[in-house]
């Protein structure tokens, strides 16, 4: 897997780890935020891709600096690497939906320090920077959170914005023309090539979708970072919100 910077100042950084080599399991992105020497890993990934993820993370940040992990929901591609991370760094603190704590413990490492996030959300101060845990319930999991860094204007959006892309994909939705009309085609191609089916099939609730879009539109976002696929930057963020807003979701029910 490769690591690419998303946002960078002298003491505040975001990275994406992307394009995994193992293709028998769903391709996932992992994110790392570092502030003043303390780091958090977001949706640290599945058991099977752990060696690749750890190796790519170790390239950008010393493992002892990883103080915390954020788990958006209970799925194995998000959190089944927990016992391996815990074996390497037992001091890591794990933040996850409270509803899923007992389920996530099934992955192993009963002694790991888990912190349940209540349904209303929460926040974490790391290296002096505030990260907000925003509720994103039913998008797609029944207890689900996203992470917002207001200073970096990064929204880690879990499965929202996800796309199933082929091996060798880039970290970004094509940024050429992202801020003018010519970006429209790049965006449409991305949606058609892997995002549309994902959202129609995996997102179950119109009501949850509409509520999430209403709240997210109030935030200032430069980078919308999904756990699968590629990052939306600049005006692609608004393009995505507009597109998602118009998309009927829960397609399996409709089709049946």
């Amino acid at each position: 897997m490769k690591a690419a910077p998303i946002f960078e100042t002298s003491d505040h950084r975001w990275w994406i780890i992307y394009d995994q080599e193992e293709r028998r399991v769903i391709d996932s992105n992992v994110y790392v935020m570092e502030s003043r020497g303390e780091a958090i890993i977001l949706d640290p990934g599945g058991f099977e891709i752990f060696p690749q993820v750890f190796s790519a993370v170790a390239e950008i940040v010393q493992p002892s600096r990883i103080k915390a992990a954020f788990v958006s929901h209970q799925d194995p591609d998000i959190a089944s690497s927990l016992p391996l991370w815990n074996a390497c760094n037992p001091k890591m603190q794990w933040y996850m939906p409270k509803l899923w704590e007992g389920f996530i413990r099934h992955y192993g490492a009963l002694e790991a320090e888990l912190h349940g996030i209540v349904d209303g959300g929460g926040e974490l101060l790391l290296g002096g920077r505030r990260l907000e845990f925003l509720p994103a319930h039913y998008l797609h999991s029944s207890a689900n959170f996203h992470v917002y860094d207001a200073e970096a204007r990064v929204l880690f959006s879990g499965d929202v914005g996800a796309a199933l892309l082929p091996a060798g994909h880039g970290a970004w939705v094509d940024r050429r023309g992202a801020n003018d009309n010519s970006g429209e085609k790049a965006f449409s191609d991305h949606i058609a090539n892997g995002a549309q089916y994902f959202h129609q099939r995996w997102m179950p609730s119109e009501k949850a979708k509409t509520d999430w879009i209403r709240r997210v539109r109030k935030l200032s976002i430069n980078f919308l970072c999904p756990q699968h696929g590629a990052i939306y930057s600049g005006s692609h963020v608004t393009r995505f919100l507009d597109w998602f807003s118009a998309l009927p979701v829960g397609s399996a029910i409709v089709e049946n």
Partner: protein
Amino acid sequence: MDPQRITQLIENTHEIQGRVRRSLREIDRRALNAMVLVKRHGNVLAGYGVIASAFREQAAKLQVAAETLQHGVEPLIQSSMRLLQIQNYSHSIQTMLRSIGEGISLGDLPETERRWEADIAKEQIMIGEIIADLLRNLERFQEGIAEQEYVVTNGRIEAALVESSGVPLSRVSREMGRAVAEVRKAIAEWKQQLEEFTHESSTDL
């Protein structure tokens, strides 16, 4: 293999690689300064010009060698983490085998356990080979540093010979020497840590 020991090795590697990178940058800067001085003073310092140019050439070679070292670390991390993965599977099966009472059919479980054990042994051999490779590359790097130190020594001699020119070449040579010594020290520490890691893990490897 203790995962925290490998994590510690990675930590130390990070720190040492940072020092090597900084020192190599310093070496390059010193070499460039020396070449500028030589250019400014024309034929008087022609001898030192040869030294400065050799110094810079050697510094570029060290940069390449440092990148080779850097690339050698990634397979070590990946292989160690794969080992951790397999050990995790194997441990689960061992726990199951212990908890199942006698006389109960275990199906293919013992065979699966043997397979995991074989995979563990294979991965351990691979880690041993990766470390051996890294150590060989470190030795090659040390040879490069020795050559660089030889250039520095020649620079000092040349600087002494043209001292009357008033150009502060002795100071330049001293600074070059210090930067090279820092790289030598960092590489020796790294090598020692890898050797200790191999030694401590020898029961596993």
